[in-house]
Structures are given as structure tokens and as C-alpha cells.
């Protein structure tokens, strides 16, 4: 549905976005990650046709945004970063206005307004002026505006920013539901959100895509990902390390003793998170008669992967 090709945006001499390409298909929820100023918002503004790209193309549903802007915009629902809304209008008036410009007039428009008001829990403030609303309500009003025409493509710039934990949870559930038959792209810097909602994630830094994959794949890039850590009693640290190191699928092992327990970590020869290594380690532990109270496979931590990709030159070179 969304096809972005070599997108470049320059502001004066500064390159905010530098050759970004990706595709989002129907049924996919793409998480757009990156530090502040990485070019997330700029990219989204180009997808929605607000900013014309300096170079490159954006196609939405087969329509090039630069050539057929109106046809492309009809397919898109957009929540801008600051969730702007006309503050002198009521929620109902504002949503009706957007519905009309989206081609939903009369009864169809009113149906749409009440449908999204229900989805975004706005019924109680429907006839309140927008400038009297709290931030959460205002945010959801703007979100409601973006889904009023049941768009095939949703572009959401930080949809959960400034919401309380309950509201965040509701929005994530909503996104998941909507994502089943839409192409959704949303930006965030809350990493747990990526795990909770996304089918795929892109990390962008200084205008360039530095990682692209499923949340599990990205976590797998963590240096500890796939390793098995365990805590045992019943042998010396050296013995434990020796025995574990002797396993055929193990590359290297660390072990240290702390307050009576041996903390060991086993790295597999082939990278990748699966249960095989944990099973072999468990079997060995039982065979040796060690007592263990903890044994698990490290899945990798998204926040550390994020840091390693977006921090200048520290861990990036090591993991690439």
C-alpha cells in the first residue's frame, strides 16, 4: 500500500532524510523508531503529501503523492505529531467538518462521526469545545479524525504521546484491531510499544534506515540474544564452565560465583533464539546432579539494540 523509494528531504543545506526506502503492505503495522530529529516526522509528512520531497517517490495505493496528491490523500488517514485540531470547534463539529471534506456528507457523515467517537471513547465530550478538553481527549479527537473515513493507509506520528498508561493501552488495542486490514505506519520512541503492536519495525537515525525487521529479528541483533543464562549449585564455577563448554553446540561460556550460586552464561555457535540450547543445557544440569533455580534463553533487549544502532560509532561497528 505504501511504497517509499529513495526519499530525500533537504532543509537548506541540512539533509533531514537521506535516501529512505521501504514498503508497507496491507495487514502490516510498521513501527518507525528513531531518536528525536532522526527524520521520522519529516518522512511521514512526505508520505502524507504535506512536504514535497527533494528527491525520491512516495506511492500510496498506486498513486504517486507528488503527481496525484488528492487521489493519494483520499486513501490516507493522518495524525500529525502535535495532534492539532481547531480549538474553537466542538468535537462533533470538528469531526463532521473532516467527514465532509472526506466526502462523507449527511447521514453517512454522522454515522462516521459516531462510529469513531465510539472507537476513541469520545462520546462524553462530543459537544464540548476542543479548547476545554484535556490533552488525552484532544489527542484522541485528532486520532478519531484520522480514521473517520476508514482509510486503507494510516500514518500516525506518535499516537500515544502524552497519554496515560490506560489510554496508551486502549490506543494500542485499537491499532492492533485496525491493523488487520490496513497498512499502518506509526512512529514512537516507546520500545515496548513496538513489541506490543508492530509486525515490523524500522530504526532510522540521522535520516538513514539503520535496521529493518520484525521486533524479534531486531531483538536478535542484541549481543546476548540466543544465549542461555542459568544459576546452579553443586559444583565449582570452573567445573560448570568446563562441562557447559564441552557441549557440541556451545561456542563459549562464562561462569562466576556469587553468594553460593554459580551464575553461568552459554553462547550458542549459531546465532538465533530457539529452545534447543536451553534444552541441552537443562539435560546436562540434570545429568550432573546440579541444583538450578533459574535457566532461560535471552531474547535480546530492544532498547539496547536501539541504543547500539543510534549511538554514534560505539557499539554499531561491533554488531554490524
Amino acid at each position: 500500500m505504501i511504497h517509499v523509494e529513495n526519499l530525500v528531504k533537504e532543509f537548506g543545506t541540512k539533509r533531514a532524510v537521506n535516501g529512505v526506502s521501504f514498503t508497507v503492505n496491507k495487514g502490516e503495522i510498521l513501527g518507525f523508531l528513531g531518536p528525536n530529529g532522526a527524520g521520522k516526522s519529516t518522512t511521514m509528512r512526505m508520505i502524507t503529501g504535506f512536504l514535497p520531497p527533494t528527491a525520491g517517490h512516495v506511492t500510496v495505493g498506486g498513486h504517486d503523492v507528488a503527481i496525484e496528491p488528492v487521489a493519494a490523500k483520499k486513501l490516507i488517514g493522518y495524525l500529525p505529531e502535535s495532534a492539532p485540531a481547531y480549538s474553537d470547534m466542538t468535537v462533533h463539529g470538528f469531526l463532521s467538518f473532516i467527514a465532509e471534506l472526506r466526502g462523507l456528507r449527511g447521514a453517512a457523515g454522522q454515522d462516521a462521526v459516531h462510529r469513531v467517537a465510539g472507537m476513541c471513547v469520545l462520546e462524553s465530550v462530543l459537544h464540548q469545545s476542543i479548547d476545554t478538553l484535556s490533552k488525552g481527549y484532544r489527542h484522541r479527537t485528532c486520532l478519531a479524525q484520522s480514521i473517520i473515513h476508514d482509510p486503507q493507509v494510516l500514518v500516525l506520528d506518535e499516537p500515544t504521546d502524552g497519554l496515560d498508561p490506560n489510554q496508551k493501552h486502549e490506543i494500542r488495542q485499537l491499532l492492533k484491531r485496525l491493523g488487520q486490514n490496513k497498512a499502518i505506519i506509526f512512529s514512537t520512541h516507546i520500545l515496548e510499544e513496538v513489541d506490543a503492536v508492530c509486525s515490523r519495525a524500522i530504526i532510522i537515525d540521522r535520516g538513514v534506515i539503520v535496521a529493518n525487521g520484525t521486533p524479534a529479528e531486531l531483538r536478535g541483533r542484541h549481543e546476548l540474544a540466543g544465549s542461555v543464562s542459568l544459576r546452579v549449585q553443586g559444583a565449582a564455577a570452573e567445573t560448570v564452565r568446563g562441562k557447559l563448554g564441552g557441549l557440541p553446540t556451545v561456542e563459549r561460556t562464562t561462569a562466576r560465583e556469587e553468594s553460593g550460586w554459580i551464575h553461568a552464561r552459554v553462547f550458542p555457535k549459531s546465532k538465533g533464539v530457539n529452545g534447543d540450547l536451553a534444552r541441552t543445557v537443562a539435560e546436562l544440569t540434570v545429568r550432573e546432579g546440579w541444583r538450578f533455580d533459574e535457566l532461560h534463553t535471552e531474547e535480546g533487549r530492544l532498547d539496547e539494540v536501539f541504543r547500539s544502532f543510534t549511538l554514534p560509532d560505539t557499539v554499531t561497528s561491533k554488531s554490524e
Partner: protein
Amino acid sequence: MNESLRNIWTIAKRELGGYFNSPVAYVFIVIFLLLNGFFTFMLGQFFESGEASLTRPFFSWHPWLYLFLVPAAGMRLWAEERRVGTLELLLTLPITAWQAIAGKFAASWIFLGIALFLTFPVVGTVYYLGNPDLGAILAGYLGSFLLAGAYLAVTVMTSAMTRNQVISFILSVVICFFLILAGWEPVTNLLVRWAPTWLVETVASFSVMPHFASFQRGVVDFRDLLFFTSIMVFSLFTTSVILRGLRSS
């Protein structure tokens, strides 16, 4: 109605609602009517002149009255959208920038038209006192409405230039002031003394004054209509260029 007209009307409706849902509209209309009354009956010496005509006591003040009131009515049109960020929302809806510009302009022009229409008691007064020339009055109103539209188009343009309403107001007043002064007799007289005739005429041809004057005399000339229309088209076109530039820089 085709889709683009519908979009223009939807936007115009929202803007008109914006005027009348806030005190702006009522304050504006009251002040407009008070000033009109003051100029007409006090400064314009409506009663003393003993003439059943609106030209001198009523319409001749409009270029000066509009100079401040029209920019005040239009300064927020784009500046506010830029400041609050709703510009991003508006321009990512499936409409063209032209439809948005036309809708906003139409709404404010209709609003100014309503304010102008509410001066009808003045017309009733002349009719009560004498036998005025209806044609001249209607032409005067048409001219006044077009004059307001021309100023308004300039204000729409300056409003798109900045996110600050005050700056938009001041720029607009300065440009409209130029449009008055360029053909105002005291100024042209100054120029005539040293400048060649063609220069005086070129400068004067930018002025709204001679064009508005012929409407006041009851003459609806095609050239005057064209003059006001071209100011509006030019200013609104410049607005679309500014809006595009805003996004590509």
C-alpha cells in the same frame, strides 16, 4: 455541485462558524457600524450637506475604514493555522490548496458583506429625507464590496506569510495604505511636480481610489471591475505560491 465547490463551501462554512461562534464577529460588526455612523453623520456632515446622496458622506470614508477593519477581520485566516499546526491537517486532507484559499477568502468576504449590508439604515435615511439615485447607491455598495474584497485578498496573502497575526495585520495595512495613497490626489499632486506623466499614471493606476470613485458616481465600468478582480486573483495566487514555498523550503 461538483466536488471542488463542495470542498470550498465546507471550508467557508467552518470559517464563517469561526467568526460567529466567537465574539469577533459581533465586536467587528458593532464597531464597523458605529464608525460608519460617526463618519457619515459627524465628519461627513450628512445633514448639513443638504444632498440626498451617499457618495461623499458615506462611501468616501470606506477606503479608510476598511484600511484597518479588513486586515483585522482577515489576519487570522492562515496565521492561526500556521501557529496552531492545523495547516498540516488541512493540507493533508484530500483537497487542493486552491480550494482552501478560496473557501477561507469566500467566508471572510461573505462576513464583510454581511457587515456592509447592515448599514442599510443609512439608505433608509436618505430615502426618508429625499429622492436619491438608487443606481448610484447600488453601484456604491458594489464598489465598496469589491474594495473590501481587494483588501481582504491582500490580507489573506500577508496572513499566509507569517504565523503571527499582528505582523500579518501590519503588513496588510501597509500594503492597503499604499493602494490608497498611490492615487490619492494630495500624493499624485506631489509627484506631478517633478515626475514624468507616465510615472505618475503608472503609480496612480495601482490605486483603488480612482476605481472606487467611479463606483461612487454610479458608474459600473468593466475596467474598474477588472481592476478589483485582478488584485484579488493576484493576491490569492501569491497566497498559493507562499503556501507551497512554506512547505518546500
